């Protein structure tokens, strides 16, 4: 059986070894020339793909929980959804969660994921108290905030060893509901103003209509919110719809994209509306549709996510949205987000500014388009998110990540550069 990434591209054969215990892992590492850890296959591109995959999901026991401090220790194959199932009803939630709960704890650390509250709480590594990791020599080290290993591993794309167990702190909540405000904006300028105006709200994200043209460019639905205080903690994961097969690729033409965008746009009729929604609706809307990646057809898709420094964001986004709109390559969803301060991790994606994420079906001409978008991103001092990426060049990647040489040196020093690799790490030579 071969494993794919979320974008289902590239489609390569691989050999899988399941992570079950330290001992068999250490012999696997010794016997395998080159491999990369793989969690639940939610990274979009080739960051967790190679000929040999270490499948970490079966390694998924909860190890301890400190009721007073809200600190959970678990093996890395545990899904964030399992953490929610266990703890929301007891009044705990993840400090930082991405837009899907179907990722492993190990993946969350390796991608140093972020969520709608980045401008307030930062990346996932903020809630990681410590972790244990097996190096390529088979030795197990424990690692705390501030260690170089911590800086390299959080956001390090699984390239600094096999994370085994981690302690993360959870946050207290008093409801499974979120009071959400939806603000409709007419253009990019209004969108930016709306973000600034609601900056104090802990959670915010905007859905951009990417097909809008000219003066409409950047029109969006901005959703901001915070946990309610109604004491209702009754939480059960919703049963999900599933897409049982790959859609034929003609299903995703410009019209269906327009229809989809329209539906979202029609939601807030008079500019501002308020809703009370639950955790799953607010944080994980797409998880409600099982394998939604299949909607892009057998050829697969990719997500292009970049971030620009705050001062350059307006100009840069305008330029990029104009190019996308002119290309006619419809993006099913485009997510705009305001970010807070950059952390010290070597390869974490976020910096203070705005990021945009768009999906593209893999088709001829796409990578050329993305190359031209790369140029704009670099011109404005931005960077590309490795967890979503399947095609960025070494040169583009490097320019966005000033700490890359520290990361490379660290890998080399600890002899990881030969043993631990993904298709992506080889492409961008990290």
């Amino acid at each position, binding site marked *: *059986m071969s494993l794919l990434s979320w974008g289902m591209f590239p489609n390569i054969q691989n050999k899988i070894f*399941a992570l*079950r215990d330290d001992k068999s892992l250490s012999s696997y590492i010794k016997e395998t020339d080159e491999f990369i850890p793989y969690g639940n296959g939610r990274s979009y591109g080739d960051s967790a793909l190679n000929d040999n995959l270490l499948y970490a999901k*079966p390694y998924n*026991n*909860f190890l*301890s929980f400190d009721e007073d401090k809200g600190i959970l220790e678990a093996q890395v194959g545990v899904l964030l959804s*399992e953490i929610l*199932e*266990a703890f929301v009803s007891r009044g705990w939630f993840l400090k930082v969660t991405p837009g899907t709960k179907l990722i492993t704890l190990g993946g969350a650390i390796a991608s140093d994921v972020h969520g709608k509250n980045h401008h307030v709480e930062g990346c996932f590594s903020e809630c990681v108290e410590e972790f244990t990791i097996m190096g390529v020599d088979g030795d197990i080290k424990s690692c705390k905030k501030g260690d170089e290993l911590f800086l390299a591993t959080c956001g390090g794309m699984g390239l600094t060893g096999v994370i085994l167990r981690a302690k993360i702190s959870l946050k207290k909540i008093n409801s499974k509901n979120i009071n959400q405000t939806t603000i409709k904006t007419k253009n990019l300028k209004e969108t930016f103003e709306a973000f600034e105006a609601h900056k104090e709200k802990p959670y915010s994200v905007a859905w951009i209509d990417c097909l809008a043209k000219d003066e409409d460019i950047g029109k969006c639905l901005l959703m901001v919110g915070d946990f309610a205080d109604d004491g209702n903690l009754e939480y059960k994961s919703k049963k999900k719809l599933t897409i049982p097969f790959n859609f034929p690729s003609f299903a995703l033409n410009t019209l269906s994209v327009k229809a989809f965008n329209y539906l979202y746009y029609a939601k807030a009729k008079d500019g501002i509306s308020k809703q009370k929604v639950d955790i799953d609706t607010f944080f994980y809307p797409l998880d409600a549709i099982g394998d939604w990646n299949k909607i892009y057809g057998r050829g697969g898709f990719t997500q292009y996510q970049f971030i620009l420094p705050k001062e350059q964001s307006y100009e840069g986004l305008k330029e990029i949205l104009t190019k996308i709109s002119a290309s006619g390559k419809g993006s099913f969803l485009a997510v705009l987000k305001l970010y807070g301060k950059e952390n010290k991790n070597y390869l974490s994606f976020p910096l203070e500014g705005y990021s945009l994420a768009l999906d593209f079906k893999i088709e001829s001409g796409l990578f050329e388009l993305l190359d031209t978008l790369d140029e704009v991103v670099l011109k404005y001092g931005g960077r590309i998110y490795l967890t979503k990426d399947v095609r960025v060049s070494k040169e583009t990647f490097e320019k966005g990540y000033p700490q890359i040489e520290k990361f490379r040196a660290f890998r080399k020093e600890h002899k990881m550069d030969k043993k631990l690799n993904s298709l992506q790490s080889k492409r961008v030579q990290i």
Partner: protein
Amino acid sequence: MSYVLIIGAKSDIAKEVARVYAKNGYNLYLASRESESLADLKQDIEIRSGVEVKLVEFDITAFDTHEEFYTSLSERPLGVIVVAGFMCEQKVAQKDWSKTLQTINVNYTGALSILNIVANDFEKERRGFIVGVSSVAGDRGRKANYIYGSAKAGFSAYLSGLRNRLYESGVSVLSVKPGFVNTKMTESLDLPQNLTAQPQEVAEDIFNAQQRGRNILYTKTIWMFIMLVIKHIPESIFKKMSI
């Protein structure tokens, strides 16, 4: 809250079944050989769900210990789920009688030995549920897997008869027929992804089917159709096939 007894608790499917029942508020007896090796799972489930988990020593092939095992449980379980299974490669089993015998003893004889005891008790009490994890391999013998398949066929027939008998007493019996499942047992096999279920999926399916009082569960559902076709191929053709 009531206890559910899981027989053969070491398998990947059993581990997920245990987690699902715990998540829904059931306390658990996890029965297996060397049950202390399940201490990690016990801890995991207690943290996740706050239910009570008791590890109990049980050998499915030590038939004469089963009566005492069952009566010594401190609380009578509300449900019993038999997940124990043993599969060895057909080519090995057909040459090595001890492997054949172990296949029969784990998948069939042992399961019957403990379930006879449970059934008598549940029938008397007029309550409880029984779940037996059989296999699609029991629906028709194929050259690739017929020793294991025949033991599972026997177990399926037993569950069907048991369901019939216990209907009057209001005790439900669910036969589970998983197709391919991604577990330790199948790790080395190259299974088609569309037909292969994750153990978590199988466990959720079992819980839902049992709670709804269903009789037979194929998981994934597509296996019901596959086996329908396979069962209806005329023997004169089937004997020449390699599937």
